[in-house]
């Protein structure tokens, strides 16, 4: 099993899956801001996308630029099967931690 993904890496990978064919940097940033952390910086998302790609969990292709972007290309991302497996492992690890736990915890008598 590969190293478990961090919470932010999971948020970025899930955003890429959720956005489908429209998963490019800014769209991922907006999704992560809406669902995970409001004040997240663009640099954090870009560096995470770069890292996930170098780990082989994401693939990317360049798309055409638009006027609003001053003609600069968009990079579209797609989750690779390795990325899906890594998300699966992360989810299983969390489920394992919670398994058998009664929630909310019962307060024992005698403890302050």
């Amino acid at each position: 099993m590969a190293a478990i993904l961090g919470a932010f890496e999971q948020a970025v990978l899930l955003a890429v899956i959720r956005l489908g064919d429209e998963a490019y940097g800014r769209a991922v940033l907006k999704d992560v801001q809406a669902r995970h952390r409001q004040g997240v910086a663009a640099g954090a998302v870009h560096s995470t996308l770069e890292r996930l790609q170098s780990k082989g969990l994401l693939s990317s292709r360049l798309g055409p630029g638009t006027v609003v972007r001053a003609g600069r290309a968009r990079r579209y991302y797609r989750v690779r099967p390795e990325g899906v497996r890594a998300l699966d492992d992360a989810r299983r690890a969390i489920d394992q931690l919670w398994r058998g736990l009664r929630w909310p915890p019962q307060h024992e008598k005698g403890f302050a």
Partner: protein
Amino acid sequence: MTKRRGPPAWADALVGLMVDADDRENVTGDLIEEYRESILPAVGMTRADLWYFRQAFGYVWDATVLWGALQAVAFLARATCDWFWPTHDFSLRASISTCTGVAIGLSVGLWSGWRTASLRAGAFAGLTSSAIAAIMSIAGLALMFAAFHDPATRAAIDGSGGLSECLELPVLLIVPNTALGLVGAVPGKLLRKRLQLRIRE
């Protein structure tokens, strides 16, 4: 006068300077798109520019903070030796710390040149990382002096050049580190170009 619709050109160039050469266009494009579509209409130009500066600062910080910390650790390690293990012959220590400093300075440039394929990025990374190192080193020295200012340590500090020299040196190193960053970026950029040529072949 035409009203500007994008971020300040220098801030845009700064982001472009610090990101991977292959991602330059899409990263700066994403930022411009966000600036124009979301930030500018919501908060106006002054605050939108501030937002962009914060983003640009984040890219600079991410690219240089570890190098700055490494330089500061090397500097503080030398100061620790001089303060707690006093000597009269500083030649060996000076040689080791100079070689370490030069190696780190060149590595900053090499890494930046490799990543960004830009010589200017190497010089800028050298400048920024050594400025961060100066702040960290001065803060570290101040903490060390606050904790250890007994007569023996003070005598060792005076014997190694004095506290003022210790505090000035990290600032004086900014200029040579900028030059080392530029020099290191040359092989970094060449290596990247050669590897890209090989991949295309």
